[in-house]
């Protein structure tokens, strides 16, 4: 038996492929071909990420059709539209990439839950139940989950469009309306905090990494891939039980500034801070930052990438990046904290880049088989082409070991027994080992 097990262990294969073709069908075929050509066995699962561009170049249905022309029937497939990705070949904000694993000592299941903005709890429960039931009889003891959720959508308002700063009186009406339209029309916050809370509760003995799908950072639409389906407003997950080991680590590159603020009134599922220490939130924020009102322009989002407002949940830092200013409210993509101190942290290009090295330095490389990384799209937007420096660090670390990084619009991390966290501006690595 021991001999057989050792032989099995030799059979782990990991592969990363990609396509830069424009035509959706051809790109689907190529990303699958380039991935599977590196495997001898059938894939246990296929993780697929694509930028939004295929929507206008044939559509995501065609893209998936291309993939399934190559991918063996019934391979568990999940994925979605992302801001960008990195792999052993480079760093891209256009194209598609996939990670596939072939390994005998692994049982795999995928799950889905719908209408995440309307009822995130129900969606997460549905998704978790599918995986829990499917893997119940597996004898492997190590449990891992990758979750992919639908991110928030910035509302397109008649006469206003998709502005990031709305200081007029109309803002108050809009904020009230958003509370209801979010549920009815599924526009507004993605409510991913609630999803990771349920997933980690239902699958408490799993370690989890994940993130949200998006478009090209315009926050207008996003798609999830589940088997042969292209979905919206859904949570999908890939769970597996195995004898593989892994290590999961998050870093930020953020430094505390000492500027603290205590939100006293929140709304929009706690994603919008209406008051800070009982003053209108925007005025209080500008005062604490020492900024003038004219900094609140359409470039404000890009500026505040370097000043996220953070709180601690358990041992983890939870940064929040300012998404919108609506009248007196600061609107974030994920939950803020009411009646507890939040602190402004600062980032610089070099601190963001150094945090990647700090993260990877924590890992041993012996028996490392493949890596999966979820990084925030805010880091990509903040670093621009300096992201290639990040790629250089990562590539030097993995060398010929396959890795895939996707840029998410918010990241999920849960280590079994610890507090689940929804993060922004984070860099999260999970490395898988055969030991």
């Amino acid at each position: 038996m021991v001999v057989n097990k050792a032989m099995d262990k030799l059979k782990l294969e990991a592969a990363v492929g990609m396509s830069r073709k424009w035509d959706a069908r051809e790109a689907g075929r190529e990303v699958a071909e380039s991935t599977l050509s590196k495997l001898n066995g059938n894939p246990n699962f296929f993780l697929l990420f694509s930028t939004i561009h295929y929507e206008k170049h044939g559509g995501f249905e065609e893209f998936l059709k291309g993939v399934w022309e190559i991918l063996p029937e019934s391979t568990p497939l999940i994925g979605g539209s992302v801001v960008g990705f990195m792999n052993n070949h480079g760093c891209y904000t256009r194209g598609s990439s996939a990670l596939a694993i072939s390994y005998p000592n692994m049982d795999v299941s995928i799950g889905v839950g719908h209408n995440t903005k309307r009822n995130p709890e129900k969606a997460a429960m549905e998704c978790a139940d599918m995986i829990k039931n499917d893997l119940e009889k597996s004898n492997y003891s190590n449990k891992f989950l990758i979750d992919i959720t639908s991110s928030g959508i910035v509302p397109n308002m008649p006469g206003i469009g998709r502005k990031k700063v709305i200081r007029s009186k109309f803002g108050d009406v809009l904020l009230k309306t958003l509370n209801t339209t979010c549920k009815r029309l599924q526009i507004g916050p993605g409510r991913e905090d609630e999803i990771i809370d349920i997933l980690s509760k239902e699958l408490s003995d799993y370690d989890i990494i994940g993130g949200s799908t998006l478009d090209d950072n315009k926050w207008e639409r996003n798609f999830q891939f589940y088997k042969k389906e292209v979905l919206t407003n859904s949570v999908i997950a890939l769970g597996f039980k195995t004898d593989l080991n892994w290590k999961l680590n998050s870093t930020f590159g953020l430094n505390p500034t000492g500027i603290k603020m205590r939100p006293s009134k929140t709304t929009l599922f706690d994603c919008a801070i209406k008051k800070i220490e009982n003053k209108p939130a925007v005025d209080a924020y500008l005062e604490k930052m020492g900024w003038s009102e004219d900094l609140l322009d359409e470039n404000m989002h890009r500026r505040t990438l370097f000043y996220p407002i953070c709180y601690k949940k358990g041992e983890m830092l939870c940064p929040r990046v300012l998404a919108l200013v609506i009248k007196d409210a600061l609107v974030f993509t994920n939950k803020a904290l009411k009646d507890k101190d939040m602190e402004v942290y600062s980032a610089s290009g070099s601190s963001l880049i150094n945090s990647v090295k700090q993260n990877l330095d924590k890992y041993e490389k012996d028996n490392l088989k493949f890596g999966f990384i979820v990084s925030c799209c805010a880091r990509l937007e903040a670093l621009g082409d300096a992201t290639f420096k990040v790629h250089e660090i990562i590539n030097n670390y993995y060398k010929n070991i396959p890795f895939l990084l996707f840029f998410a619009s918010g990241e999920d991390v849960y280590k079994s027994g610890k507090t689940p966290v929804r993060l922004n501006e984070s860099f999260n690595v999970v490395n898988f080992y055969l030991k």
Partner: protein
Amino acid sequence: MHDDPIAIVLDDLLKLDDILACMVARQNMISVMPSDGNDSFKPEINQIWDIIHRAMDDVFSVVREYSQAGLGEMEFRLQDYEALFYIFPDTENALVAIVPALANKGLIEVEMENARREVLGAMNEQEKAQLSTL
């Protein structure tokens, strides 16, 4: 023109929504345009093209002066547009793109850098081919 690998790189860039125009250029000279020339530029660029083109030429005098010193990138904003210059090392040439001022520039920069690398690769190939015919 349709077979020029550098033009193909430019064609790819121009397919991105926020790239309104792109070219490989030097002072007073556009060396390579996308396959369909400036017909493939997004129509909104027409209203500002003349003034941007003039401003570009002025920027190229800086490129010429400092390229050898390691100048890698430049950009300027004119009205609601930005011009991004990705300079080819030790040359007076740059890959230039015009984008809306409010575009998500971080994402565009990644594809600009990919394009610069591809153009450099194509230039090196062309140079090798020329040398082999000597």
